[in-house]
């Protein structure tokens, strides 16, 4: 595997992510349209689905906000290009910005300058997991600003516990209302610490819609919170209706005896992600999308 080959794979992943909504998400939107009783809500879901189809057919970004570039990397310690991955991802983001194209979205918070290539201090951001073996698993996860703006951290007390978590999530989603472009996918991170629960929450957004947690107590809570949020009546785009969330996913880590941290990550309907597995020998398998 050469660096330039890997760079091309990453550009492909970015293109797939922003132009081709994963089928679990579009299927969930279809199902929501089928169930929806509110006519304004129906018009919004129809517009979203038509937009998704056009973006796929023409291979252009489904939303003009192509996000901040985040990657999830799980890599075997024997993968030959391990140390070059950050440079390769940065180059791929620069290239993809031109060729896909992506909207130039990185702004220096001190200087307010936009370099125009979607890179800069700490961006692209890479979440690392080092494993045994020599395979590389990459997920490109471009994250839009509208839904990111309503993500929240709740440092609850153990006494508030799970009931406190549910109240925190419901209150935060009601407050968010139309802002995160509903129907959304909600990721909840429970335990760990302030940073850990936020990381867990965001990681839950990678889980396909409809996939439940393996622990039955947690999966029951996911269902329960999903149903409750859909009873708020916020609806698609906050214009009212039965469909406010497509799914709720919960991830858990052990907590400190004195803390009950809750992270809330929100994903707009344009749940963009694309994954591939790459071997040392250069074999590439796209795992999130069918690629000819």
């Amino acid at each position, binding site marked *: 595997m050469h660096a330039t080959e890997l760079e091309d794979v990453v550009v492909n992943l970015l293109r797939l992510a922003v132009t081709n909504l994963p089928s679990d998400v579009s299927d969930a939107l279809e199902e929501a349209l089928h169930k929806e009783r509110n006519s304004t809500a129906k018009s919004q879901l129809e517009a979203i689905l038509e937009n998704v189809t056009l973006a796929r057919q023409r291979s252009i970004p489904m939303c003009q906000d192509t996000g901040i570039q985040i990657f999830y990397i799980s890599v075997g310690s024997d993968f030959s290009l391990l140390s070059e991955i950050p440079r390769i991802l940065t180059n791929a983001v620069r290239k993809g910005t031109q060729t896909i194209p992506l909207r130039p979205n990185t702004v220096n918070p001190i200087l307010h300058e936009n370099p125009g290539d979607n890179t800069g201090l700490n961006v692209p951001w890479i979440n690392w997991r080092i494993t045994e073996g020599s395979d590389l698993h990459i997920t490109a996860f471009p994250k839009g600003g509208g839904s990111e703006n309503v993500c929240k951290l709740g440092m609850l007390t153990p006494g508030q516990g799970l009931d406190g978590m549910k109240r925190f999530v419901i209150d935060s989603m009601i407050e968010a209302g139309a802002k995160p472009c509903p129907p959304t996918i909600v990721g909840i991170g429970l335990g760990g610490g302030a940073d850990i629960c936020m990381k867990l929450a965001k990681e839950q957004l990678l889980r396909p819609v409809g996939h439940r947690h393996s622990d039955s107590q947690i999966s029951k809570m996911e269902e329960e919170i999903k*149903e409750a949020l859909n009873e708020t009546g916020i609806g698609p785009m906050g214009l009212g209706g039965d469909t406010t969330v497509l799914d709720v996913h919960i991830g858990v880590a052990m907590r400190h005896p004195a803390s009950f941290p809750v992270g809330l990550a929100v994903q707009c309907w344009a749940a963009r992600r694309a994954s591939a597995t790459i071997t040392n020998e250069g074999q590439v398998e796209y795992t999130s999308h069918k690629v000819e």
Partner: protein
Amino acid sequence: MATYELETPISEEDIRKLRVNDIVFISGTVFTARDEAHERALKWFESNKPLPIQPNGLAVFHCGPIVRKKDEQWELVAAGPTTSTRMEMFEDKFLEAFQVRVVIGKGGMGAKTAAAMKKVGAVYGAFTGGAAVLAANTVRRIKDVAWLDLGMPEAMWIMEVEHFGPLIVAIDATGENLFERVKENVEHSRQKVYQLVGLQDS
């Protein structure tokens, strides 16, 4: 709930017929303005400097598009709406200064804007958030761009559109605000939502 086809320049009379939940499609001229273009437009108005376009009767679109240059021509790639509440601090003055008839965005706007719409004769049209290809699909051409020094998303892009929509009328010229109505309904549902996850009191 009725569906209307409007052509710019749109008259005050036509706008005052529209009601919340109506669906509108626009043909003619739409221009983009986000935070910085709103701010600059109002500054120019105060110092009697004319805008790069004649805004009366047009639609202003809260949007930071993806645009690229192909053979010296601007080509629109994707153009969905941005969150309108950020423009709440400017929009009432903007409406009074420029008599735009339709404000297009996502997420709705507040009481100050609704009051100005009632006074001036304008509506807020909610365009489906994220539906950037659908929007770009109705843009026949980019007529002009002004204030590119503000950057691609913040510049004023002047677009010729055909059948641009569907826009849901979410604030009408009587001052009725659909987003506020939904918020009230959500507030009514709050206790029921709590009960569904087993929470007892409020």
